[in-house]
């Protein structure tokens, strides 16, 4: 039996969920066992996803590793899984990040660590489900169910203002997604099926597309998040425990981007074209305005949260620029470059934001403060840490040679084919990103040691070094040789763009 015959996507979903349930049952009595067990489960899940990568056929447009079974026969809802070149990198990212989160919690979480691990393992399974689901209702179930563990994670292990933050997070995302549900139900009436691929091909009037686009927009713009519905993110990030921030930034934000690619563009191409300028303007506002907002933050986590929003502006810009490029040049290559750049930006941001949050976590564990002014001169007591953080700060500001550069560069390059001014404003991020990240880095790491506590800081231990090392490898590897990511997604993106640039009006 070859690997392709295994229900490998189901294994990716259910291994961590069942592992998480076991961790819940084992509870606080067997903390040590649960810790090693969780690590094992997350590594096994990662191995599954690597197998997926190795067996993935990059030359095929169709969904791969398809699993199809009837779930709710009364309404023809199926347990229908499959992946293409967009979903695969995100699944790899998810299972990779889970290992880091488990490691990062090792000695840090003091309260109910088994439940903490359980929540993250279940969350991983659900997130893999989101990326693998090909039935709209199955997708929605994973999408919503994911809120439950995250709500618990922020609420139990979060900071002082955690209750406000977690309820805001929950209600905001819930608000977005319920309209998506109504849109799915409407599409079911039109397409006669909940299969996402069937929805792609159903013709719709412009008005219907506009309403559906707005419903999807509410769901995905809140999740990714776009200005002006981003306000839950800084709150959630600041209050969440380190692991929660990492998962939020590295994976959950990407779901918004994934949603735009999987639903908005192919299901409502004409409305996407119609709202193209609107989306581009919102993206540029996120890139520029939020960049300025990040500049004045005094809380490190908040600063990184705003920087995430700003980077996500690049992603939405890359997703919606193809329409105007195609209108200007009549060629597909620029359009494809925009979407691929945005995808690359999502993957790279997954590593970089995770790394930045983990760096803040490392300092927070020692000094229990996230305020920039409480630090200064950290390099004197933590030289190895300072070196790692330097790399990540550079990557965050888009230094060539790091993965942060590739996506931004491609999106800016693509924007030039649309309009000089779009590219101009997008390129401001190179200045702004460098400004807020490096200025923060300077204030935290360099300078004179003003506080005794900083002077007594211990440098990173082996566990922390391992986590940061893994991320550093990823950031550099994809910065120097990003081709694997592009190989995986190229055929899918090309097909998607071809589909999305064709009108499907009634």
């Amino acid at each position: 039996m070859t690997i392709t015959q295994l229900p490998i996507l189901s294994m990716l979903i259910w291994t961590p969920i069942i592992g998480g349930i076991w961790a819940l049952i084992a509870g606080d009595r067997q903390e040590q066992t649960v810790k090693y067990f969780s690590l094992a489960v997350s590594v096994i899940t990662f191995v599954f996803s690597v197998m997926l990568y190795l067996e993935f056929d990059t030359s095929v447009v169709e969904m791969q590793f398809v699993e199809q079974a009837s779930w709710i026969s009364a309404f023809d809802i199926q347990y229908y899984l499959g992946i293409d070149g967009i979903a695969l990198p995100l699944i790899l990212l998810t299972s990779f990040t889970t290992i880091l989160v488990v490691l990062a919690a090792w000695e840090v979480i003091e309260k109910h660590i088994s439940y903490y691990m359980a929540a993250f393992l279940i969350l991983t399974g659900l997130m893999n489900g989101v990326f693998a689901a090909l039935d709209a209702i199955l997708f929605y179930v994973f999408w919503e169910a994911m809120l439950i563990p995250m709500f618990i994670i922020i609420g139990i292990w979060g900071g002082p203002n955690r209750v406000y933050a977690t309820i805001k997070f929950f209600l905001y995302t819930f608000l977005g997604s319920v309209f998506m549900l109504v849109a799915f139900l409407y599409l079911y009436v039109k397409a006669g099926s909940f299969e996402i691929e069937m929805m792609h091909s159903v013709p719709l009037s412009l008005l219907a597309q506009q309403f559906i686009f707005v419903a999807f927009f509410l769901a995905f713009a809140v999740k990714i998040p776009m200005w002006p519905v981003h306000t839950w993110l800084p709150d959630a990030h600041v209050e969440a425990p380190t692991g929660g921030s990492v998962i939020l930034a590295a994976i959950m934000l990407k779901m918004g981007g994934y949603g735009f690619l999987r639903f908005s563009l192919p299901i409502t191409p004409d409305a996407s074209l119609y709202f193209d300028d609107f989306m581009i303007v919102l993206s540029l506002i996120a890139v520029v305005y939020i960049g300025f907002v990040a500049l004045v933050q005094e809380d490190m986590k908040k600063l990184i949260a705003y920087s995430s929003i700003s980077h996500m502006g690049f992603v939405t810009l890359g997703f919606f620029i193809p329409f105007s490029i195609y209108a200007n040049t009549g060629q597909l290559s620029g359009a494809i470059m925009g979407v691929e750049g945005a995808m690359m930006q999502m993957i790279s941001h997954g590593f970089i934001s995770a790394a930045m949050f983990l760096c803040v976590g490392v300092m927070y564990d020692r000094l229990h403060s996230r305020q920039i002014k409480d630090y200064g001169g950290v390099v004197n007591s933590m030289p190895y840490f300072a070196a790692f953080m330097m790399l990540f700060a550079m990557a965050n500001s888009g230094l060539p040679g790091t993965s942060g550069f590739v996506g931004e560069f491609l999106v800016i390059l693509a924007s030039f084919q649309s309009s000089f001014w779009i590219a101009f404003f997008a390129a401001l991020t190179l200045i702004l990103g460098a400004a807020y990240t490096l200025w923060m880095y300077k204030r935290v790491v360099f300078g004179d040691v003003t506080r005794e506590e900083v002077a007594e800081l211990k440098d990173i231990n082996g566990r922390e070094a391992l986590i940061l090392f893994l991320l550093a490898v990823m950031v550099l590897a994809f910065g120097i040789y990003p081709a694997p990511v592009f190989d995986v997604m190229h055929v899918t993106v090309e097909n998607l763009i071809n589909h999305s640039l064709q009108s499907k009006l009634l």
Partner: protein
Amino acid sequence: MSAELALAIPEITLLLLACLVLIVDAFSNDPDHKLSYWLTQASLLLTLSLVLSVNPPVTQVIFDNSFISDSMSTILKAFICGITFVVFLYSFEYLKENKLVKGEYFVLGLFAVLGMMIMASAYSLLSVYLGLELLSLSLYAMVAMNRESPAASEAAMKYFVLGALASGMLLYGISMIYGLTGTIQLSAIADAIASDSINKSFLVFGMIFMIIGIAFKLGAAPFHMWVPDVYQGAPTSVTLFISTAPKLAAFAMAMRILVDGLYPLVEDWQAILTILAVLSMAVGNIIAISQSNIKRMLAYSTIAHVGYLFLGLIAGTQAGFAGAMFYIISYAMMSMGAFGMIILLGRFNFEAENLEDFKGLSERSPWFAFIMMCLMFSMAGIPPFLGFWSKWFVLKELVASGFVALAAVAVVFSIIGAYYYLRIIKLMYFDKPESMTAIKASKQMRVVLTANGLLILLLGLLPDSLMQICIAALTG
């Protein structure tokens, strides 16, 4: 005649058994009335099995066209008996703990079940009314059962006076319809209206009064005033009962009157129900936010849920009615669990009815905090719990019938509603407990409540069977 009687055997048996319990209890010296309790439970199980064995392959109307036996009535009756069985299981614990055990409680409960079964099978306006009164009168007395409690007496008075008023409205509507169509038999009413020979505005006038009666019994805004007071004032075991099985009966009443009898007026009652649905969702979800008493909060949540139930009826299709039935059955199961949890946390002379009493439950009892979390997420309509599918089902049918805007309004209110369910989870998981008093409850109570909670999760993961049952009930 005997063939006709055969179809009504469950009701006849239940009547005889209720009388038997009354007699047996009169001769009992046991302060806990154990014998009456077990007899009651046995009667319910026996009736349940009879209901299932009668299950006819074809719809039959008997007793001079006033009693119908079809798949909807069979399934509703089966759920009514089953749910009441669990309700009495929870109740008995509560009554023993609070020294309220009386034989009449069980007798009245059985008569209420009989009333509900008659409502489920009623096929003329007279049998609808008789079933409704049998149910209501039993419930009034049950609410007043704790005569030492001023709150309970006040609740009973309020329930009785407003209930009598609603019955009056219903009767007035019935008399109008009877006067116009010359019949009280539901299918004959539908035929008479469909013949188009009757002035429609008079018909709608009569129909409005009947809808008021239905709305009152279900607790839909703006006829919801009694709900919070009765839910709060009544002994928790009675609140538990009122909020579960009678809702199924009220749904049956709505189906019989609006669909079997007044379907030719569907566009008119859709418009009226739309107003009631939006008002109920708004009033229920918004006012629930400001409640500090959990029984009151759940009362407002009931009002909101009734609004969603109406959405299925508004869809106006068989599938929509199936959705409404699925909704009310799943609601009854969730409500059962939530009130069961209040009983579980209570002690003698102490009702865990304030939200504060749920503080830090995850430290006191992680398992029951988890069960309650399942129930609350389910009520909020979050997958993968049963409550999601019930909302999903009615919304789907609503969209399929073209009411997309109404569906959008409904989901907006469900976001508002999510807040107060989340608040309970917040209290249980994110707050520190005020006392670490261990939970004192019998093993039986724990097992049943656990099963109740896990059922909500299981049916949320695999809702197909229950959906098929509801669809079969409406089309079979």
